[in-house]
């Protein structure tokens, strides 16, 4: 299990970067938006996986931070806040603050108890947003955001243009990847992983488990908040469905599908999820039975997630090959 970014993957990343830049100029408007949404969900899933894959905590309430980020940004923009980046930043901070509170209580628990407790907190946030009609718009949410133009070096960029927003999201997507991959490769990340592997032993070395877990929880919440803010801007709305437990399930599904123990697993999972859904809904509206029918074998035959298992298989082959050379 290697959390960091290796040299080989740097080349891959460069290629991916090139594709990312060229893409909106070759595909149509819808696919530009399709990829935009995948990147947003990719940020969300990556943020979730810092907690799940690297710290060993399965959060089932992560949509709370996604939602808080989204609602904060939407609330500001709907009331005529003039700056998009600042709205996103404040959304992110609000999500981080929510994560401090929820994390403070939640990180004492482990495993399934942690999962259910975060689910409970997540649903409290959902209820709050759903019931507080005067501020959050209740079940209707905050809709019809008007986006202020973004000033970049003297240019005024119209954010509502799908291509412009694609690049904004791509920027955050890359920043998220850079920051999170740095974090997991740092000594902080190593401690998180050792907590995941063996909590007791790590505690013996004098490390404050709770503090590290909380830190991981908050960082994870911050990035979920970024994703939520971008999502609200992308959809011109914040709706309670962003905070429902079914929304918390999405990054879980994507991460497990792609592979929790490889850095890009959640991104691959997000891509797979969207592509599978897109293809299925193309020819049927009884999509659930097909989605389920595809998920089940994927889970059974890819024990480390799709990317995780493929990488492990290649690595296994290489080891076998080198073993043969020696003989």
């Amino acid at each position: 299990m290697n959390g960091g970014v290796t040299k080989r993957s740097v080349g891959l990343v460069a290629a991916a970067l090139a594709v990312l830049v060229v893409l909106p100029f070759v595909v149509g408007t819808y696919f530009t938006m399709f990829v935009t949404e995948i990147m947003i969900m990719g940020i969300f899933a990556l943020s979730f996986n810092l907690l799940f894959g690297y710290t060993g905590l399965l959060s089932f309430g992560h949509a709370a931070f996604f939602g808080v980020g989204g609602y904060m940004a939407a609330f500001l923009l709907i009331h005529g806040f003039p700056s998009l980046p600042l709205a996103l930043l404040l959304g992110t901070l609000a999500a981080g603050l929510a994560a401090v509170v929820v994390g403070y209580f939640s990180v004492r628990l482990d495993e399934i108890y942690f999962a259910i407790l975060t689910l409970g907190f997540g649903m409290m946030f959902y209820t709050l947003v759903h019931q507080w009609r005067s501020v959050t718009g209740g079940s209707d949410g905050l809709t019809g955001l008007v986006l202020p133009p973004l000033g970049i070096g003297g240019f005024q960029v119209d954010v509502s243009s799908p291509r412009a927003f694609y690049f904004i999201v791509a920027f955050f997507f890359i920043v998220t990847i850079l920051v999170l991959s740095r974090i997991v490769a740092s000594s902080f990340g190593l401690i998180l992983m050792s907590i995941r592997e063996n909590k007791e032993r790590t505690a013996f070395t004098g490390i404050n488990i709770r503090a590290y877990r909380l830190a991981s929880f908050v960082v994870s919440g911050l990035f979920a908040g970024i994703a939520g803010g971008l999502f609200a801007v992308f959809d011109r709305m914040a709706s309670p469905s962003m905070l429902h437990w079914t929304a918390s399930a999405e990054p879980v599904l994507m991460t497990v599908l792609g592979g929790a123990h490889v850095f890009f697993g959640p991104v691959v999972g997000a891509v797979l999820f969207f592509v599978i859904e897109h293809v299925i809904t193309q020819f049927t509206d009884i999509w659930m039975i097909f989605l389920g029918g595809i998920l089940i074998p994927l889970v059974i035959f890819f024990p480390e997630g799709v990317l995780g298992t493929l990488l492990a298989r290649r690595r296994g082959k290489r080891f076998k090959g080198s073993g043969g050379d020696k003989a």
Partner: protein
Amino acid sequence: MSLFFMNFLNGVSLGMLLFLISIGLTIIFGVLGVLNFAHGSLYMLGAYFCFQFVSLSHNFLGALLLAPLFVALIGGVIEGTLLRPVYGRDVSFQLLLTFGVLLVLDDAVRLIWGSGYHIVDPPAFLGGVVRLAGFTYPVYSLFILFIGPMIGLGLWGFFRLTLWGKKIRAASMDREMAAGIGIDVNRLFTGVFMFGAWLAGVGGTLAAPLRAIGPSMGEKIIIESFIVVVIGGLGSFPGAFLGAMILGLINAYGAQYLPKATMALPYILLAIILLTKPRGLLSKES
């Protein structure tokens, strides 16, 4: 005062149904270590099978006998073909897998029975009402109040007194040891999963005369069942009973005293219990 009493009955009878659904979930978790997301869908299947049998034969008691057996059979197929490869993997894989099962079952039900709603009538001798504290009260709800503890007692006896029950309890405490003393763990697991599915089926069948039977009715119940088994103590039998009663009563009294907060109450309760008793109220470990 009479309203307080009525809502006590309402809460307890809701609790009984939650209990029937949740014990299957908690037994499966206790023995197999699997958190079954599709458990609510098995409950839904129970209700649909009940509807099917009743509309064919007009015999509710026959349906009560048959529908859960069919659910158990489907449970057996799910366990044997799908769950077996993922034992021992992280709980998230089991959630994802059983989520896939949930999706398939939800749509299968829609394809077979359509997307509309169906209702089932209770048998004539349970269909009436009695007068209680100034209200009319359905006999069928009293029947639920009666049959819930009966099934609970039956299960208690089964686990305490029969060989199979003891085997299951042994396996739920220590799987390796159980295998060591010659218990066929594979067969036991299939049996336990079918048993849990059967209980979900019983819950669905008993709920059928009270509920509108429609697509995705299992998704509503699954989160409540998770809450019940976790606040009671995962794998704990009396815990599931206690958790179900608490949730049922909270629902009933919440509607009466705190109508604006009913949506949040179960989650607030969940958080308070987990933060004070991290393994649930009646867990085996603490």
